[in-house]
């Protein structure tokens, strides 16, 4: 039985969630964190990471991470080399060169950023703004916008070569 109970009799209110006090809940969270940290130190990082993130997930977002929903139609950019049909990661400013995009957006070798396309994002699409974290030997650091909800009205325009 899940529920929030507030007991007010006899002094300060005591809040219970699913029958547990807030102190008990916080203790459980910290115990789990300590167990996971201990496992990392013991060299079981793979097991621990699997417990924290879904399989294959890697942290990609740094800096000031902000999620927002577009209130008007906006233009973004996407770099690619193989798939012109769309992807979840966009930039607000067009990268100035292919190498700059590869490094700044921390792209894997499968994306050489040889093309750039405009992307029309309608109102009502939720995006997450962040700075690309370094990955695949690339430094990252550029501002990126990740599309969080699928919307068939997002338009990926034909690409043009990016040098």
């Amino acid at each position, binding site marked *: 039985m899940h529920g929030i109970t507030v007991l007010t009799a006899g002094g300060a209110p005591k809040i219970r969630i699913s029958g547990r006090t807030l102190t008990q809940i916080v203790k459980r969270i910290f115990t789990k964190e300590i167990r996971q940290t201990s496992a990392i130190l013991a060299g079981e990082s793979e097991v621990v990471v699997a417990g924290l993130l*879904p*399989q*294959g*997930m*890697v942290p*990609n977002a740094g800096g000031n991470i902000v999620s927002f929903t577009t209130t008007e139609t906006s233009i973004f950019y996407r770099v*690619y080399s*193989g*798939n012109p*049909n*769309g*992807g*979840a*990661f966009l930039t607000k400013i067009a990268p100035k060169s292919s190498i700059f995009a590869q490094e700044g*957006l*921390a*792209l*894997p070798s*499968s*994306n050489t950023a040889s093309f750039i396309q405009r992307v029309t994002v309608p109102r009502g699409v939720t995006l997450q703004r962040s700075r*690309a*974290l370094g*990955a*695949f030997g690339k430094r990252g650091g550029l501002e*990126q916008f*990740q599309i969080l*909800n*699928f919307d*068939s009205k*997002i338009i*990926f325009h034909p690409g043009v070569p990016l040098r």
Partner: protein
Amino acid sequence: MQVIKEFGSNELVYDNVKNGSITQSIDISDETININYSDIIDTQFVGGNVGPKFEQLKRDLNLGVYSKAPCGGFVNFFKVVSDKGNNYIVYSGVNEVSNSHYIVTIHKILKD
């Protein structure tokens, strides 16, 4: 629509940065279907290659308008033809975990 086969969350997972082969064969009783993960990734923003059937398939699987696949990725329905000429639909989730790094998780094989 009929669910022919279901897979566990970590059973059929493709990572375009780690995995070498982009194809996968799946046996369905006495026939085989071949999946090309690259084709699935290329259609992540149109939900696969089933066209207007996309919404109907989502309803059949009790997925909401904004639902994601069980893996957390965008829902993808990809029609494939088996070695015996029968049509199947591969239900998967496409997760772009960082820019151009894709994880595809196959969830179900469906038959019309």
